[in-house]
C-alpha cells in the first residue's frame, strides 16, 4: 500500500515542481503570468513536446533516437518544397512531411531490429544522413514563399488559440491514450522492462520496436511541418540539437534511459518545465549562454531526484 502512495507522489512530483517554478517566475517577473505569455510558452514548447512524445515511446522500450532534430529538418524541407505557393493542395506538403518522418523512423526501426547495432549508433548515423539530405534537397538554402494555407499550420489561430497548441493537445491525448490504454503501450513497457521476458510472454518485440521508431519519426515529421510553417521558411539547418531537448524533457518527466518507465503526462510537464524556465530567463534578459548552463543543471538535478526516488 505504501509503495502505491510513493508511486503516486512520484507522478505528482513533476507537477509540483512545475507549479513551484511558475510561482517563482511570476514573482521574479510580473509579465510572466499573463495570458499572452502563456500562449507564447505553449507555442514555443509545442515543437519540442512533439519530439519528446516520440522519444518517450522509444526510451520506454529501452532505446534512444538521436536523429530527431535532423529528421525534423529534412521533413520540413520536403514539406516546404511541396508547399510553394499555388502548387499542390495543403494535404500534399503535410503528407510529404509526415511521410518523410515516418520513412526515417521505419529506416531506424529496420536497422535496429534487423542488426545488433545499438540504437545510439544507428540513430547517430541517421542523424547525419538526414541532415545531409536536408542540405542536398534544399541546395543548402532556405526555401521561402510558402502557401498561406501551409503557413496557417504554424502561425494561424482558431478562436484565439494558436494552431500549434491545438496540434500539441491532440498529440498529447493521442499519445497518452496509446501509451496507457492500448496493448501497444503496455508492450512498450514490457519490452523496455525486460526484452527477454517480453519475448517469452509472446510479445513480438521487433514489431513494437518498429512501431516506436516509426511513431517517433512521424512525430518528428509533424514537428518539422509546424516549425517550417511557423517560420514560413524551410531551413536545412533547423532543429540542430533538438533531440537533446526532447530527451531531456522525457527524462525530467520521469522516463528512465534504462527503459521500462515513463509517461506522456510526465514528458509534457518535462517539456513545460524546460519551456517555462527558458521563457522566464528570456524575460529577465539572461544570456542564452547562461541558459544552457542552467538547463544542464536542471537535467542533472531531475535525474538525481529520480534516482533517490528509485532507492526507496
Amino acid at each position, binding site marked *: *500500500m505504501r509503495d*502505491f502512495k510513493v508511486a503516486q507522489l512520484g507522478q505528482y512530483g513533476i507537477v509540483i515542481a512545475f507549479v513551484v517554478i511558475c510561482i517563482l517566475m511570476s514573482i521574479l517577473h510580473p509579465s510572466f503570468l499573463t495570458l499572452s505569455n502563456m500562449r507564447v510558452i505553449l507555442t514555443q514548447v509545442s515543437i519540442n513536446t512533439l519530439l519528446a512524445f516520440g522519444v518517450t515511446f522509444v526510451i520506454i522500450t529501452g532505446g534512444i533516437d538521436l536523429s530527431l532534430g535532423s529528421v525534423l529538418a529534412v521533413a520540413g524541407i520536403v514539406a516546404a518544397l511541396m508547399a510553394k505557393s499555388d502548387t499542390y493542395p495543403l494535404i500534399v506538403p503535410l503528407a510529404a512531411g509526415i511521410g518523410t518522418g515516418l520513412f526515417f523512423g521505419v529506416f531506424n526501426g529496420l536497422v535496429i531490429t534487423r542488426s545488433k547495432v545499438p540504437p545510439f549508433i544507428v540513430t547517430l548515423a541517421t542523424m547525419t544522413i538526414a541532415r545531409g539530405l536536408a542540405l542536398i534537397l534544399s541546395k543548402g538554402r532556405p526555401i521561402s514563399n510558402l502557401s498561406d494555407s501551409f503557413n496557417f499550420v504554424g502561425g494561424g489561430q482558431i478562436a484565439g488559440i494558436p494552431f500549434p497548441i491545438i496540434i500539441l493537445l491532440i498529440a498529447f491525448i493521442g499519445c497518452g491514450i496509446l501509451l496507457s490504454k*492500448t496493448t501497444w503501450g*503496455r508492450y512498450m513497457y514490457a519490452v523496455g522492462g525486460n526484452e527477454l*521476458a*517480453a519475448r517469452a510472454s*509472446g*510479445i*513480438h518485440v521487433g514489431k513494437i520496436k518498429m512501431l516506436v521508431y516509426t511513431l517517433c519519426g512521424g512525430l518528428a515529421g509533424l514537428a518539422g511541418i509546424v516549425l517550417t510553417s511557423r517560420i514560413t521558411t524551410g531551413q536545412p539547418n533547423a532543429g540542430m540539437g533538438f533531440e537533446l531537448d526532447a530527451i531531456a524533457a522525457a527524462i525530467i518527466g520521469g522516463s528512465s534511459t534504462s527503459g521500462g*518507465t515513463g509517461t506522456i503526462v510526465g514528458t509534457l510537464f518535462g517539456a513545460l518545465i524546460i519551456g517555462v524556465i527558458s521563457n522566464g530567463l528570456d524575460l529577465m534578459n539572461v544570456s542564452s549562454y547562461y541558459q544552457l548552463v542552467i538547463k544542464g543543471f536542471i537535467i542533472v538535478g531531475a535525474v538525481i531526484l529520480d534516482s533517490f526516488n528509485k532507492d526507496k
Partner: protein
Amino acid sequence: MDMTQGNQTILKVTGLKKSFGGIKVLDHISFELRKGEVHALMGENGAGKSTFMKILAGLEKPDSGEIYLDGHPFRPASVLASLQAGISMIHQELLAVPELTVAQNLFLGKEHTRFGGKWIDSEKNNEEAARWLEKLGIGISPAAKMKSLSVAEMQMVEMAKALSNEARIIIMDEPTSALSDREAERLFGIIRELRGKGVAIIYISHKMDEIFRIADTITVFRDGRYIDSRPAEEYDATSLISVMVGRKLQDIFPQNTAEKGAIIYSVKNLSRQPAFENISFDLHAGEILGVSGLVGAGRTEMARVLYGLDPADSGEVWLHGESALPDSPQTAIRKGIGYVSEDRKIIGLITKLSILKNISLSSLHRYSRYGWVNSSEEKLAVSKLAQQLRIKAGSLDQRVETLSGGNQQKVAIAKVLMAKPKVIILDEPTRGIDIGAKIEIYHLVRQLANEGLGVILISSELPEIIGLCDRVMVLSQGRQSALLNRSQISQEEIMYHAVPR
C-alpha cells in the same frame, strides 16, 4: 572423514537467544561442531541460520546463551575478534577487490612489508600467496587480477584467504549458488582438502544433493529453534525435508486422486544439436510428467524448443492431433503451450511492472478490442487468478520486484495460466523459494493436473520429482535414458539413469 579427529569438539553452543525488536529470531539454539567435519546447517528461510552465522562471525551479538570455543567461553565482539579466534565466513556476495591481484586480495590489510612497514614487498606477497594456493591445490596465478577469475575461483581464493588467517572454522553460505556443476565439483574437492587439514566447515545450502555429497553431520533449525542433529547418513532427502518443514511427507506432496486422461501431447524424435537428440514421449491429460537429469542433460533446452524460444533441428510435436512445434512463443501460446521458465528475473517476469501487468501480459489481446485494453475486465480476471493462487501483496498495482521469491513465482505461473494452456511446462518452479511456498506450488501443480492440464515438471530436486510426478523421463547428456512409471520411480533408479555412462 578422518575419524582420528572426528570426535574433538571445537565449538559448542547452548541456549543461544536473539531477538530483533521483540521478535525471537533465535530461541534456545544448541549446536556442536567437531574438528575436521563438514556440518550442514539446514532450515527454510527464516529458520535463523543466517542470524546464527552472523553471531559466530561477530556481526551480531546474542542476547543470552553460551558459546564455547575449544572449551573456553567465547563471545565475539567484532568480525576481527572472530577472525582472530579462527572463524572465517565466506560471504554469498564475495568481498574481493576486482582490480587487485589474487595475492593483493589474499593479504589485504596484512601485507608483507619491508623497511619498517609501509613499503609493500610484492615478491614476498606473491610467494606466500602461491604457497597458500598450492596448499589447497588451486591452480591460480597469484599475479592474476581478481576480476579475471570465475566466481568459483574467487571463492577458492577466499578459502585460501581464510586458511591463511589460520581459520579453524569456515562458514560457507550457499557457496555453489553461482557455480556450474564442474566448478562446484572443484569446490567440493577443496572443501574435502580443508576437512583433511582439520578445519571444521559449517555449510549452508538449499541444494539437497549437495548436502548429501559433502556433509558429515546435519543440523536442522526451524523457526529459530534447534530441532535435530545427526550424522548425514541417517537422513535421506525426503526425511530431511519433513524435519525442516515439521510436516509429514504426505502433507508436503498432494496425492494423485484423478484418473489419467487420454494422450493430448506427443513429442516424437525431437532433436536440437548439440543440446539433445531423439526425445520422444506422450503426455496424458491430468498427468504430471517429471523430467530429471543432471545440469547440462538438455532439460531446459528441450523446454525452450517446445515453447518456440529456440528452433528444433528435427522432430514432431502434436497437441490434440494438431502439429504443435512452435516457431515462436506467440505460436506456442496460441496453440495452448505454456512455459514457466527456470529463471524468473531473466526471462520470466518484468519486475519493474506491476503484478497486474505481468499476469495479463501473455493474454492481453483477449481483454482488448482493436488494441484498446478493457482495464476493468482485465483487472477482474487477474484478481480472480491472483486469489486462486494466493498471491500475497498489498495491491495488484504493486511492482513485482517488491515481492518475495515465492510470490514472484506465483505471478510467473499466473501469467502462463491466464493464457489458458492445455500443456504447461514448469522449469525448476521451486528454485530459490522457501518450503512453505514450495508446498503451495506442489498443491497448485497437482490441482492443475486434476483440472485436466498436461504438466511437464523439470526439476533438479529429486524429492519433488519423486513426490509429485506420475511418470519420470530421465535425460542424460542430451539423450533420453529412461521413462519410468509410477512404480519404478525411486531416487536410486533416477540417479542410475541420470549419470552418464
